[in-house]
């Protein structure tokens, strides 16, 4: 894989991947990220996705979530996903934050931010990273329902939008 840059900034940390055990404010994170990356002049496009904890799933009220992961492999897989995106599109930098552990309703679970010179690259890469993360990054959700726990069995396809609950 190679990072194809419009310009090369050797001092910049172009790929940031973090797992968080504490709740985070995605907008504050993005602000700090942008300030840290600066060099704004070549970034025409920023595409962001935030996934948050919903209070319903598969017809049931969900009161909380436990997010299990595979320490070591999860980080490695997230890197693989981002490197693949950087090889396919021309990107400036990528940020991926993901929660692990206990999560409450409304909290952010995942944040993906892709910056690029052009919007096509930013949109495509942001969405591709999210889909790959959903289907290959080793995270598992256990939902707290009112009367029991329930493991979520895989993720749906985010491209083909069908009738869902």
């Amino acid at each position: 894989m190679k990072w194809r840059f419009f310009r090369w900034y050797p001092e910049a940390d172009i790929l940031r991947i973090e797992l968080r055990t504490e709740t985070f404010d995605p907008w504050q994170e993005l602000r700090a990220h942008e300030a840290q990356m600066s060099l704004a002049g070549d970034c025409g496009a920023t595409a962001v996705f935030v996934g948050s904890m919903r209070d319903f799933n598969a017809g049931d009220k969900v009161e909380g979530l436990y997010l299990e992961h595979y320490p070591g492999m999860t980080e490695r897989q997230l890197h693989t996903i981002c490197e693949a995106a950087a090889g396919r599109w021309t990107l400036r930098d990528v940020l991926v934050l993901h929660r692990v552990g206990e999560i409450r309703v409304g909290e952010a679970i995942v944040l993906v931010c892709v910056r690029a010179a052009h919007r096509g690259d930013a949109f495509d890469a942001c969405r591709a990273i999210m889909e790959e993360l959903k289907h290959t990054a080793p995270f598992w959700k256990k939902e707290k329902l009112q009367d029991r726990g329930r493991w979520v069995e895989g993720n749906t396809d985010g491209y083909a939008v069908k009738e869902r609950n």
Partner: protein
Amino acid sequence: MAVTVKFFANLRESVGISSTTVEYVPDMKIADVWKAAAKGKERPLGMLTAVNMEYAKDDVVIRDNDEVAFFPMVSGG
């Protein structure tokens, strides 16, 4: 001469183990690792496997000191 074995999510719960080691045997395959680690449990269909933290297919040959992980379809994000 050992292979580390890990189970995650509902597989961890149903097997009742999160991490264990099994003895390494030459020409060991993933199915053998399961048999040695899973305390007589049937290996469920549709589970995923990683060897040394990378996705692996059943026909990969296990080497001494490998880490083999079994887990269900992922559901992050």
